C-alpha cells in the first residue's frame, strides 16, 4: 500500500492517530499497537516536506508509540519472580494515550460544530452601528469614558473590514485588478497538467468573478489558436473537455498576443 499524505491535512500527531484509528476501524479503547505504530511510521515517512517544528512533534509521538508497543510486548505474567511488575501490568501502557486521544477527539468534534455554526451565521448579515457622532457635541464626546482594551480595538478594526468587504464590489466593479491573458494561459495549462492533461471545461472556471471568467475564456481561445489545447465534445450538448496537446515551453507564452 502506498499513501499520498500531506502534512497540512493533519492538525498534528493526535489528529493523524485518530485518522488511522478510524481508517483501520480499530476500537479506540483497544488499540492494536503493532498495527498502528507501523502505519504511523509509514505515514510520517510519506510526509515529504515536514517543517522542522512540526516534525519534532510527530517524532515524539513515534517514540511514544514505540515505547508503548514494546511495553505491550512484555509477557503479561511470566513467573512469580516478576511479581514486582504486577502493578505496572495492571496499568495498561496505552491508557495515557487513549485518554489524550479521547480528549482531543471531543474538541475536534466541537470544532466541527463551530464550523457548522460559522456556516449558518454566514447566512445572515447585520449592519454597523450608525455613526451618531453628529448628534453629539464634541466636548461631551471627549468626556465620554472609553473603557476598552487592545482587543476591543482589534474587534472594531475587524468590524470595519467586514463592512468594507460589503461595499467593496460596488466601488471596485469599475476597475478590477487585471489578470493578463498571458498569466491566465499559464494558469490554465498548469491546471490541465495537474488534472492529468484533460479536464471538463467547467473545471477551468472555478470562480464567479466576471473578470477572471472573461480572461480565462480569452486565454483558452488563445491556447486553442496556438494548438496547445484542444476541445473535445462527443456530441451536441454533451460535456466539453479541454485537452492538453503537448508539453509547453515557457517561451511559448512570451509570444505577443494579438489583440
Amino acid at each position: 500500500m502506498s499513501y499520498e499524505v500531506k502534512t497540512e491535512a493533519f492538525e498534528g500527531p493526535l489528529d493523524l492517530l485518530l485518522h488511522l484509528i478510524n481508517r483501520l476501524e480499530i476500537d479506540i479503547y483497544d488499540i492494536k499497537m503493532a498495527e498502528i505504530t507501523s502505519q504511523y511510521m509509514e505515514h510520517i515517512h510519506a510526509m515529504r516536506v515536514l517543517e522542522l517544528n512540526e516534525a519534532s512533534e510527530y517524532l515524539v509521538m513515534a517514540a511514544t508509540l514505540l515505547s508503548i508497543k514494546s511495553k505491550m510486548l512484555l509477557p503479561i505474567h511470566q513467573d512469580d519472580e516478576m511479581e514486582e511488575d504486577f502493578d505496572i501490568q495492571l496499568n495498561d501502557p496505552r491508557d495515557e494515550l487513549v485518554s489524550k486521544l479521547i480528549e482531543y477527539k471531543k474538541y475536534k468534534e466541537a470544532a466541527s460544530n463551530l464550523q457548522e455554526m460559522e456556516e449558518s451565521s454566514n447566512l445572515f448579515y447585520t449592519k454597523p452601528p450608525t455613526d451618531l457622532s453628529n448628534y453629539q457635541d464634541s466636548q461631551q464626546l471627549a468626556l465620554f469614558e472609553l473603557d476598552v482594551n487592545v482587543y476591543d480595538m482589534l474587534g472594531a478594526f475587524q468590524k470595519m473590514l467586514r463592512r468594507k468587504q460589503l461595499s467593496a464590489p460596488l466601488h471596485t466593479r469599475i476597475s478590477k485588478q487585471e489578470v493578463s491573458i498571458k498569466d491566465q494561459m499559464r494558469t490554465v495549462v498548469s491546471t490541465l497538467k495537474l488534472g492529468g492533461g484533460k479536464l471538463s471545461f467547467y473545471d477551468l472556471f472555478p470562480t464567479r468573478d466576471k473578470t477572471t471568467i472573461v480572461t480565462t475564456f480569452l486565454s483558452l481561445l488563445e491556447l486553442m489558436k496556438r494548438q496547445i489545447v484542444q476541445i473535445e465534445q462527443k456530441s451536441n450538448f454533451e460535456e466539453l473537455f479541454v485537452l492538453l496537446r503537448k508539453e509547453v515551453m515557457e517561451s511559448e507564452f512570451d509570444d505577443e498576443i494579438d489583440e
Partner: protein
Amino acid sequence: MNSTMKLMSKIESLLFVSGDDGLTKKQLVFLTDSTEELVTETLETMMIEYEKNDNRGIIIKQLAETYQFVTKTENVQCIQKLVENPTSQSLSQASLEVLAIIAYKQPITRVEIEDIRGVKSERPIYTLAAKGLVQEVGRAEGTGRAILYGTTTEFLQYFGLKNIKALPPLPEEIAIDEMEDTDLFMTKFQEAFVTQE
C-alpha cells in the same frame, strides 16, 4: 394600544441605529421610557411578525446578549452579491480547534491548549486574537503567570450565539456504554487473572 404601536416604532428605530452593537432589553426599556413588561411583550410580537411577514427582509435575533436586526437567511444570495469573497473569511481548521478548546475550557493557558492538541498553537491563537474572537482574560497563578485566554463578545456575534451558554454541549466522551463494556471486560479479565494465580 396606541402606545404599543409607538413602542414598536421606537424599538425599530433604535435597533436599526445600533446595528451589530445591538441593545439589551434593559437598554431598550431605558431608551424608550417604558416598562420591562411592555418591552418584553412588544419584542415578542415584533419577532413573530417580522418572521412570518413575507414582505420583511429583516428579523430580530438575540445575539451576544443583545437584540439585533439581522437579514432573513433566504435573502443571502442577493446580499452576497455585495460581498467580495463570501467564503474566504472562514476560519482554518487549526483556528477552529483552538477556539473550541478556549470556548469550552476558558480561562485557559496556551500550554494547556497545546497539551490537548499535541501541537504548537501560538499562531492560531494570534490569528484568533487579531480577529477579536479571543482575548486575554487574566494571568494564571504561580510562576510564569501565563496568559489566560477566553472568548469575546465578537465570538458570540460571529457564531450567531445568544450567550456563552448557548454553545452546544461538548460532545461526550464517545459512547459511555462502550467504555463500561471495556471496563467490564477488564474487570473480568483481572478476575480471571487473579483466580489463575
